[in-house]
């Protein structure tokens, strides 16, 4: 039984957040199954949507870009959460799948006259294709997961990152090679060029990309949620918690482990393609262990096995450099330069966060929610 993401093997029962929600009256199972199944959730969603439309008009382009990239990586984080959080297969190989997606997107959607391979296909082809190619890569890796457990699997997937790095470095007509890199796919959808510096129907590039990323995130978050709430997501949870028991009740372990990898890689693939299309130029070094770890941090900081947690985690990691930059400028320079401080703070914030809130942002959110649910009576 893998215990990597669960608590250390100490308890028969597992700790849980505890506070019981009030029994909420439902009149049909159907209602119970809808996405926003409580009034509070529905109001929350509405508030979020409104906020998303206001934010781009309040912030400068550079911050909007950070947020847009954060939202795009949130899709990758959802993908990682599917395989690692929901299905319990710890993967350090996410960077590899993101890379596969990024290069698929760049090749299919890249400039046909550029120095690197490019076919100039439209976005509605290259984006899903990037996901599909990455998913196929996931399908190939999946069977390994059936044989391996826990950290063995984690390090093997880490091996993928190194092998991938080698391939990316050597496939120069596709990737440009180290120190050179290549351009991502052309960012054009419905005739709108999202990479253009010219205002797009009144919107700046930052605003336009923000909306593009938002739409992308909403679509994939819903897909992710669908997987999570369906029989597939439940089967993932069963495989994670107790795989023998899962098999004995009729869950095909091989099938679901492979499926988890494929689905997760699909999310990684589309993220990779879009992310690096927005970034513009990228080189093979981008898909290193560090990237995998960053995604793992998103999942852990956001909250394991929650879709909204993945999103919060991704935004947090995206904003973290800004946050540490902000704090670093308030600490007097002495022994360390402001940049060293910044880098150290990045590490410290991740640590501090996990130490003080091991359940992640989603845990904080649940606590706040529970508090308000009970308000003005507290339990």
């Amino acid at each position, binding site marked *: 039984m893998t215990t990597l993401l*669960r608590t250390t093997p100490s*308890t*028969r*029962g*597992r*700790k*849980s957040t*505890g506070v*019981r*929600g009030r029994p909420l009256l439902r009149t*049909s*199972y*159907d209602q*119970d*199954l809808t996405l926003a199944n409580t009034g509070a959730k529905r109001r929350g969603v509405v508030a979020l949507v409104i906020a998303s439309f206001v934010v781009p008009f309040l912030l400068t382009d550079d911050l909007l870009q950070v947020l847009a990239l954060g939202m795009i990586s949130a899709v990758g984080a959802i993908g990682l959460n599917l395989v690692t959080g929901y299905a319990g297969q710890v993967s350090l190989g996410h960077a590899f799948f993101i890379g596969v997606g990024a290069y698929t997107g760049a090749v299919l959607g890249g400039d046909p006259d550029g120095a690197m391979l490019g076919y100039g296909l439209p976005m509605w082809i290259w984006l899903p294709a990037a996901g599909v190619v990455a998913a196929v890569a996931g399908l190939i890796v999946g069977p390994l997961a059936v044989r391996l457990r826990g950290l063995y699997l984690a390090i093997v997937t880490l091996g993928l990152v190194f092998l991938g790095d080698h391939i990316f470095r050597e496939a120069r007509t596709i990737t440009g090679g180290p120190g050179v890199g290549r351009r991502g796919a052309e960012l054009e959808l419905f005739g709108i060029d999202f990479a253009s510096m010219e205002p797009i129907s009144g919107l700046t590039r930052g605003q336009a990309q923000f909306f593009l990323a938002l739409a992308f995130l909403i679509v994939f978050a819903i*897909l992710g949620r*669908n*997987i999570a*709430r*369906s*029989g*597939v*997501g*439940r*089967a993932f*949870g*069963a495989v*994670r*918690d*107790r795989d*023998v*028991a*899962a*098999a*004995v*009740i*009729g*869950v*095909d*372990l091989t099938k679901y482990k492979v*499926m988890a990898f494929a*689905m997760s890689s699909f999310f990684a693939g589309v993220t990779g393609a879009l992310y690096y299309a927005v970034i513009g130029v990228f080189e093979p070094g981008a898909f290193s262990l560090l990237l995998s770890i960053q995604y793992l941090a998103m999942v852990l900081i956001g909250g394991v*096995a929650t879709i909204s947690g993945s999103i919060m985690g991704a935004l947090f990691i995206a904003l973290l450099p800004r946050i540490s930059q902000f704090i670093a400028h308030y600490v007097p320079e002495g022994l360390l330069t402001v940049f060293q401080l910044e880098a150290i703070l990045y590490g410290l914030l991740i640590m501090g966060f996990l130490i003080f809130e091991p359940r992640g942002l989603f845990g904080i959110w649940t606590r706040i929610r529970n508090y308000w649910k009970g308000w003005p009576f507290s339990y």
Partner: protein
Amino acid sequence: MSEPVVSVRGVELAFSGVKALQGVDFDVFDNELFAVIGPNGAGKTSIFNVLSGVYRPQQGSVEFAGTDIRGMRPHQIANLGMARTFQNIELFENLDVVDNLMLGRHAHLGYGWAAAVAWFGKAKRAEVANRRRVEEIIDFLEIEGYRQLPVGMLPYGIQKRIELGRALAMEPKLLLLDEPVAGMNGEETEDMARFILDIRNELRIPMILVEHDMGLVMDLADRVMAMDFGKPVATGTPHEVQSHPDVIRAYLGPVDEATLAEVQGELA
């Protein structure tokens, strides 16, 4: 009686040095409650593991619902209609009660990953329909109050009941119960006994029961197989098995003829 639901012949199972099962033969028939008893380490759980495909016996044949299931993978056997509970609770502890039971219905969902991703339409209809069945089981086992709680934090007795529910949700053709009343007090044991009787009488599912609570076994079982050191030592009605000298020896340890007669007398 009619065709057996399960028919086990000459099963041998060994683990590096330990002979867990040797020459095990038995049949279980429709609507029968078949009990397996024996001292610790006799091989009872191993029989369950062989039946559900967790262990692969070195020898012998296992037939279930007309299919030879030896060598089949656990989920395939489950999909043929075999369900079980475990000696150590094996629930999905991070999932809530409803999800645990819904997982019991995994094979009945009838939609694939594509429908799941799309959700609306087929997947949603299937979820609603199956959820209805699960609610029936929740009613049957009287666990309404725990529906939305993660099972990990529930008391032991309730967890045992949920595990039974998960097995029932599979609509099995055969139900294997491994020590369902271990760790329960008298009253809880009675409740469990009642559920077992209801399953038998209302749902008409044949069962194999492994249990150390002799009172329960002798009262409920139609037939009993007693085992020791991986071998069946006696099979028959509760009364027959109870007074079998080998069984008494297995349970009480080596006894002389006089005490044996005494115990037999007491039991009779």
